[in-house]
């Protein structure tokens, strides 16, 4: 068995506050293989971005990794000193942020931002770095890349800027890419281009991708596997087709029911009653139980993630479709 690019084991992120310790990420466990795109979905505040930030070591204090292990290509990275982790960032882990308008330094030409990243991580000369910078821009589909290398970020449109951001994240050829809502700030026609670009580049380079999004459409189009998060916990993990068509966890089922689908015509969308509990106020046992229509007494105990009948993993005592 090959070593996964990213392996997260029982990750817990804690934020100490005046009202006690919050756990925005509570016991995440998943792997990403080379060339695989794992979609991380969930509603706002479910801990998706926090998981991504924890992996690259960019949690804002006082948030910190309290438990669990993170392995990158088999090396443990969650206990690295900052200086060693910094060398990994950009080189082994690339990150793409949500808003391309604010991700680029407005005062530096994009070429400078590319070359500084390349020179930081790869043993190349300045002229070689420039050649690579142009190549990186061409690869993400910037027309006339050699001429635009001296352009400033404000001279690009939003979609073009996100392409530049992707070129930057990939410039040192990382084996893992964390894309935190890479298309949320873009309009729909550009979204599809960016998603396709991300997908193509990862396939070509065999890089693993952690795609954080709340957009089920993006997941369906892009990801190989999907991890559904609820209140900091992983509730369902499986192949995209499987999870989207036959969701086992009642939350995933509710999520799918609330996604508009063109094929179903204009029917009223289902909604999940209630809202996600506040982090300091989680119910005992299954966090979803107060909103779940299948809730039973056993749900007061915390369900473990386990293999269900249909080849995906679910954290539920009574998964949908399982023989009763």
């Amino acid at each position, binding site marked *: 068995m090959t070593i996964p690019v990213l392996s997260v084991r029982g990750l817990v992120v804690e934020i100490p506050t005046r009202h006690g310790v919050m756990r925005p990420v509570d016991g995440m466990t998943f792997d990403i293989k080379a060339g695989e795109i794992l979609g991380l979905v969930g509603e706002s505040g479910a801990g998706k971005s926090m998981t991504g930030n924890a992996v690259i070591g960019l949690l804002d204090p006082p948030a910190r990794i309290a438990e669990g292990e993170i392995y990158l290509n088999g090396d443990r990275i969650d206990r690295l000193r900052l200086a060693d982790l910094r060398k*990994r*960032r950009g080189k082994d882990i690339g990150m793409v*942020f949500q808003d391309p308008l604010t991700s*680029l*330094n407005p*005062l530096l030409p994009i070429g400078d931002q590319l070359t500084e*990243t390349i020179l*930081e991580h790869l043993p190349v000369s300045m002229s070689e770095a420039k050649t690579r910078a142009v190549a990186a821009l061409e690869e993400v589909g910037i027309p006339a890349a050699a001429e635009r290398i*001296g352009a*400033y970020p404000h001279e690009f449109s939003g979609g073009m800027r996100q392409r530049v951001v992707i070129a930057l994240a990939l410039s040192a050829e990382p084996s893992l890419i964390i894309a935190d809502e890479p298309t949320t700030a873009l309009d729909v026609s550009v979204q599809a281009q960016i998603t396709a670009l991300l997908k193509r580049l990862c396939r070509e380079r065999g890089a693993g991708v952690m795609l954080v999004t709340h957009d089920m459409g993006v997941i369906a189009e892009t990801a190989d596997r999907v991890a559904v998060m609820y209140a900091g916990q992983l509730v369902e993990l499986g192949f995209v087709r499987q999870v989207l068509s036959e969701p086992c966890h009642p939350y995933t089922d509710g999520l799918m029911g609330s996604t508009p689908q063109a094929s179903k015509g204009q029917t009223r969308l289902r909604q999940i009653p209630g809202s996600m509990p506040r982090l300091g106020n989680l119910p005992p046992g299954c966090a979803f139980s107060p909103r779940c229509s299948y809730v039973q007494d056993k749900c007061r105990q915390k369900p473990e993630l386990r293999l269900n009948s249909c080849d995906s993993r679910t954290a539920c005592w009574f998964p949908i479709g399982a023989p009763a």
Partner: protein
Amino acid sequence: MLAYVIRRVFHSIVVLLAVGLVAFSMFRFVGDPIDNMLGQERTQADIDRLRTQLGLDQPFAIQYWKFLSGAAEGNFGVSYRQGRPVSDIISERAPATLELAAVSGLFAILLGIGLGVFTAIRRNGIASNLIMTLSLVGVSLPTFLIGILLIYVFSVELDMLPSFGRGETVMVGYWSTGFLTKSGLVALILPAITLGLYQMTLIMRLVRSEMLEVLRQDYIRFARARGLRERVVNFRHALKNTLVPVITVTGLQLGSIIAFAIITETVFQWPGVGLLFINAIHFVDIPVMAAYLMLISVMFVTINLVVDLLYFAIDPRLRVDGRST
């Protein structure tokens, strides 16, 4: 770009005319110079003669026009008190003030930016909290008090530094400099700190707050995610983005360092134009006062123009005509 500069120079001339007008009309309320110039034994004939001789009997508009046309040729008239051309007196005194201002400006900028960046990066450290607390002293204590305190500590008690004057100076062409002698350099220390302390703390606090704001931005986070060194993130990416507001304030403060050297020069008996101005007010020496105010406003206007041009150099978004390359 050139059109912009020309437009700005035109604006500057309008500003200078206005300053001259305000200054000139204020002098009419400072007092009558004739009183000081003639002794107790004066007769009405003496007074009238002198008044005509100085042109003070003419209407305000004509006085103003004469002053302006003279000033345009570099002729600011003759000092009532010293009986010498004002331009000579000022060019004699200017080096002292400019050298003092240069040293304290440099002190304010270098230390201000350095400490500002330091306190922003180590924002919870003991050292930066101490610096922030001490900086309140610089912001809140009046200049003359700081000067007197420094004199008390370093001149009176420790006897390390001179308490007044410029020390020995050397003439380099028309310029008398204190940079070339040991006593000249030593004499600069206390007045330069006194004059620049307020500006230093102001720049420091501004750099700190701007830097804290910038460090929260996405592109800083992205720079970290790209694995850049902290030094590169802090100085190449963060500091440059804080510079536009910092330059605005720094520019204006440099102007005020020269303009308000008056107090420091008085405390340290520094033979500069500030001291000259104070003496001129005592004596209602109108030509000296007018020339001084005009020079100060020329300086402010020039600094503002330079600041505006620096914006273009720093922030590419302001270059309307597209790429500079």
